[in-house]
C-alpha cells in the first residue's frame, strides 16, 4: 500500500529538515551511496546502520522533538497487547518492527521510520550501537573498545572474543602500516591476555617477520585497512554481539532471500539460474513445466542396430553415439539446433561399441568395443590410436578434468591411466571388482568405481560349501532365457562401490551391495555419485560420508545396462533410461518422479545424456536403433503435440545417418521398434 503524495513529501535539508546536526548524523555513512528515494532526495544514508539519535529512543519525549522539527503531528504511540505480531504466529512484534525500521532507513524512508518508531515505541538500535559501528569502520580502536563495553553484552566470554577481534584488526593494521613497535605492544598487552587459543596467537606473532605490507595481507589472508576488512570485522563481531543489540545488516532482505531460495529448491520444474528467476513477494515462486524438455524435437536415425550409449561434447554442439552395430556416430547439431546430421561415422570396430567419451577439449573421441579402445580425431574421423591393454570388455572411460589424460576401466578388473595422446601411464593393478563404470570427480580428488565383486579363492570355496548344488557363478540370472530355477545355485550378484583418492589411488570407502551396478555419474560439486542399480533403483551416494543419501525409483532395470545422469541447471534433476522403453525424470531434491516420457519403440532406453551447454535439451538412445533429442515445447516444436508417443520411426538400413525433424513433415514408415537380434 502506498502513501498519498501529500504524505510522502520528503524532508529537504534546506527547508523542513531536521537540524543540520541531525542530518549530518545520517550522512556519516559507511561509504555506500544509496540511490535516491524517487523524490530527488539524494542524501547519503547509512546502509542499515543509521540510528536517528534524536528520535530513536522511542519515548514520547523524543517523538515530541520530531513533531516540532517537521512541523507535523507525530502519531500517538499505539499500545498493543502481548508481544507477538499476530496472536497465532510466533513472530515477535518488536523484532519485526526493528527489521522494518532497518529496511526503511536503508532505502531512505527516514521520516516513515521515525513515525514508525513513535507509533510502535520500538527503536531500531540504541544510539551507542551506531557509534560503535562508526568507530570500527573509521578505525578508532580505543573508542570502539570503549563503546563495546557500553553495548550491554552480558556474556563475559563474548565480550572477550569481541575485544580480541577488534585488537586483532588493530594489530594487523599497525603491521600493515609498518608500525612494528606499536603492533608488538598490542600483541603483548592486549591480544595475549584475551586470546584463548595459543596457536592463533602464535600465527599472529609470526606476522611480525613480514617486511612488506603486501606480505602481511597475504599471510594473514586479510585485505588491509583500505579493503573490506573492517566491514568483515563487523560481520565477525556479530558472532559475539547478540543480534538483539546489533541487528545484522540487511536482515529483512536476507530473510526474503532465504525464502526465495527455499521456494526455488522446492520448485520441481525449476531450471533457470537463481539470479534470473523472477521473484515476487506477493506469491510463492513456482515454474510451470513449459520450460522443461519433455517433447521429442528430433529423431536421429543412422544406427542399424540397438544404440547403447550417447555422450554430448562439452560444447554441446555434437552428440556421439555407439551401439550394437559396431559403429560410433558423431552427430552435429547445426547452429539453430534444428539441422542435425550424421557428421562422422566411425566403423573400424570388430565388436559392438559399449562405451564412449569425449576428450576435455572435444578434439578426440574414445570408444570401447570389447577389450579394444580406439582414440579418434573427432574433426576428421580418423583413428589416431588403438589401445590394446585390457583383456576383457572395456566398460568405462573418464577423462581427467584437467585434460591431462583419462582412466579406463574394464571387466578384467583393471583401471588403467593414459595420457592425452593415449599412451599408457600406469595400471592400478588388479582391483577386487570387475569394473562396470567409473568416474573422476570434477575437483580431481576422487575416483568412484563400481562393479562386481570378485571373491578371493577362500571366499569362493566357503560360499561354494554353503550351496546345495555346488555350482558357482556371479550371474543374477542363470541364462538369457531365464527359465532355470534359482535352485541351480546361482547366488545374487555381489557388487561394490569403491571410492579411491585419485592422488594416492588408495581406497577411501568400499561399499558392499548386491545387484548389478551399471552407471556412475558425479555431481558438479564433486560431492555426490549417482549410481544405477539393478533391480529398478538409482542411488545417490554422498562421497564424503560414504553414505546413501537418496533413492530414485519407478524405472525398470533388470538384466540390462541402463545408464542415468544428473540433469538440468545445478544438477537439479535425475534422468534415466528404462527397460520399459520410457525415459524417467526425477526432481533431485525431493525425489519426486516428474516425467515418464514415452516415444521410443519397444526395448530398453539404454542411456540418457543432458546437454552440458543447454539445460533445456537432452538425448536418449534405445534398442529401437534411434536417438531422440528432447526439448521444451515451444512454438516451433509444438507441432509435435499430436503426440510424440506413437511417432513412426523409419528404418534406415543404409546406415548413412539420417535425421528427421518433427516439424510437421509427415513420414509414414512402418514402426521398426522391435529389435531382431536375440
Amino acid at each position, binding site marked *: 500500500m502506498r502513501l498519498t503524495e501529500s504524505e510522502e513529501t520528503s524532508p529537504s535539508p534546506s527547508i523542513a529538515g531536521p537540524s543540520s546536526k541531525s542530518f549530518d548524523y545520517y550522512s556519516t555513512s559507511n561509504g555506500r551511496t544509496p540511490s535516491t528515494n524517487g523524490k530527488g532526495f539524494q542524501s547519503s544514508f547509512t546502509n542499515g546502520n543509521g540510528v536517528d539519535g534524536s528520535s530513536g529512543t522511542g519515548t514520547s519525549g523524543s517523538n515530541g522533538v520530531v513533531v516540532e522539527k517537521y512541523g507535523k503531528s507525530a502519531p500517538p504511540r499505539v499500545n498493543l497487547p502481548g508481544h507477538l505480531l499476530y496472536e497465532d504466529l510466533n513472530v515477535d512484534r518488536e523484532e519485526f518492527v526493528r527489521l522494518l525500521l532497518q529496511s526503511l532507513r536503508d532505502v531512505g524512508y527516514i521520516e516513515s521510520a521515525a513515525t514508525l518508531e513513535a507509533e510502535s515505541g520500538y527503536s531500531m538500535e540504541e544510539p551507542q550501537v551506531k557509534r560503535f559501528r562508526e568507530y570500527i569502520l573509521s578505525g578508532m580502536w580505543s573508542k570502539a573498545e570503549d563503546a563495546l563495553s557500553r553495548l550491554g553484552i552480558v556474556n563475559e566470554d563474548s565480550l572477550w572474543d569481541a575485544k580480541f577481534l577488534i585488537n586483532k584488526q588493530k594489530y594487523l593494521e599497525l603491521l600493515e602500516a609498518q608500525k612494528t613497535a606499536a603492533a608488538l605492544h598490542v600483541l603483548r598487552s592486549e591480544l595475549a591476555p584475551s586470546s584463548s587459543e595459543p596457536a592463533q596467537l602464535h600465527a599472529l606473532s609470526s606476522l611480525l617477520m613480514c617486511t612488506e605490507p603486501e606480505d602481511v595481507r597475504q599471510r594473514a589472508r586479510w585485505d588491509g585497512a583500505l579493503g573490506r576488512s573492517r566491514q568483515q570485522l563487523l560481520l565477525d563481531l556479530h558472532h559475539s554481539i547478540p543480534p538483539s543489540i546489533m541487528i545484522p545488516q540487511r536482515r529483512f532482505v536476507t530473510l526474503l532471500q532465504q525464502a526465495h531460495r527455499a521456494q526455488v529448491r522446492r520448485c520441481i520444474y525449476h531450471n533457470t539460474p537463481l539470479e534470473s528467476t523472477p521473484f515476487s513477494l506477493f506469491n510463492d515462486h513456482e515454474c510451470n513445466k513449459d520450460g522443461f524438455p519433455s517433447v521429442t524435437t528430433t529423431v536421429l536415425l543412422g544406427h542399424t542396430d540397438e544404440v547403447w550409449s550417447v555422450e554430448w561434447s562439452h560444447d554441446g554442439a555434437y552428440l556421439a553415439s555407439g551401439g550394437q552395430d559396431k559403429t560410433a556416430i558423431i552427430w552435429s547439431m547445426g547452429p539453430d539446433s534444428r539441422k542435425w546430421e550424421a557428421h562422422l561415422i566411425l566403423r573400424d570396430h570388430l565388436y559392438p561399441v559399449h562405451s564412449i567419451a569425449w576428450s576435455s577439449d572435444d578434439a578426440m573421441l574414445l570408444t570401447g568395443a570389447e577389450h579394444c579402445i580406439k582414440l579418434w580425431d573427432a574433426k576428421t574421423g580418423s583413428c589416431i590410436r588403438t589401445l590394446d591393454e585390457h583383456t576383457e570388455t572395456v*566398460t568405462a572411460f573418464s577423462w581427467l578434468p584437467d585434460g591431462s589424460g583419462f582412466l579406463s576401466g574394464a571387466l578384467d578388473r583393471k583401471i588403467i591411466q593414459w595420457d592425452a595422446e593415449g599412451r599408457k601411464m600406469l595400471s592400478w593393478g588388479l582391483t577386487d571388482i570387475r569394473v562396470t563404470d567409473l568416474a573422476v570427480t570434477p575437483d580431481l580428488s576422487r575416483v568412484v568405481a563400481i562393479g562386481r565383486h570378485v571373491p578371493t579363492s577362500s571366499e569362493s570355496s566357503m560360499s561354494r560349501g554353503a550351496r546345495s*548344488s555346488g555350482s558357482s557363478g556371479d550371474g543374477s540370472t542363470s541364462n538369457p532365457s531365464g527359465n532355470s530355477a534359482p535352485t*541351480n545355485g546361482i547366488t545374487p550378484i555381489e557388487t561394490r562401490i569403491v571410492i579411491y583418492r585419485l592422488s594416492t589411488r588408495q581406497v577411501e570407502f568400499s561399499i558392499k551391495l548386491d545387484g548389478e551396478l551399471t552407471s556412475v555419474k558425479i555431481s558438479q560439486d564433486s560431492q555426490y555419485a549417482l549410481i544405477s542399480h539393478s533391480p529398478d533403483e538409482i542411488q545417490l551416494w554422498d562421497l564424503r560420508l560414504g553414505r546413501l543419501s537418496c533413492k530414485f525409483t519407478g524405472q525398470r532395470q533388470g538384466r540390462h*545396462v541402463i545408464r542415468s545422469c544428473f540433469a538440468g541447471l545445478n544438477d537439479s534433476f535425475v534422468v534415466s533410461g528404462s527397460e520399459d522403453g520410457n525415459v524417467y525424470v526425477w526432481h533431485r531434491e525431493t525425489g519426486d518422479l516428474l516425467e515418464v516420457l514415452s516415444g521410443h519403440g519397444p526395448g530398453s532406453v539404454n542411456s540418457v545424456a543432458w546437454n552440458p551447454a543447454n539445460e533445456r535439451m537432452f538425448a536418449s538412445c534405445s534398442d529401437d536403433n534411434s536417438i531422440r533429442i528432447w526439448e521444451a515445447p515451444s512454438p516451433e516444436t509444438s507441432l509435435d503435440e499430436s503426440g510424440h508417443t506413437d511417432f513412426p520411426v523409419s528404418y534406415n538400413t543404409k546406415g548413412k545417418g539420417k535425421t528427421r525433424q518433427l516439424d510437421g513433415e509427415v513420414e509414414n514408415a512402418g514402426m521398426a521398434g522391435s529389435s531382431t537380434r536375440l
Partner: protein
Amino acid sequence: MGMSYRRYLHGERVYGCSKCRTHLATIHSMISRAFTGQHGRAYLFDVVVNVVEGEPCDRPMTTGNHTVRDIYCIKCGTTLGWKYDKAYEATQKYKEGKFILERNLLVDVQ
C-alpha cells in the same frame, strides 16, 4: 535386447569358449562326463552362462527322441553344444533344462 555384460564365473575350474575364452560353466555344475557330441566327448552341465539359444527342434538320439536347442557363444557365435528342452523317454527326463558342452570346444580359463 539391450546391452548386458557377460557373466564371469569363479571356482576351482572354469570352462570357457575355446575361441574367445568367454566363461561358460564351472566344474561344480557338471552333472556327467558320459556324453558324446559331434566332436567326441561332451559334458552335461546344470548351468551354463553367456550362451544364446537357438530354435527348438526334435532330434533323435541314442537314448531316444529329444527336443533340443543349439547353444552359441554370446561373444563369438561358435556353436558349443545344445540344451535339452524335453525328453520323451521317462528315464531321460533328468536332462530337461540342462546343457551339453562339447569338450573339444572348451578351454580352461581358470
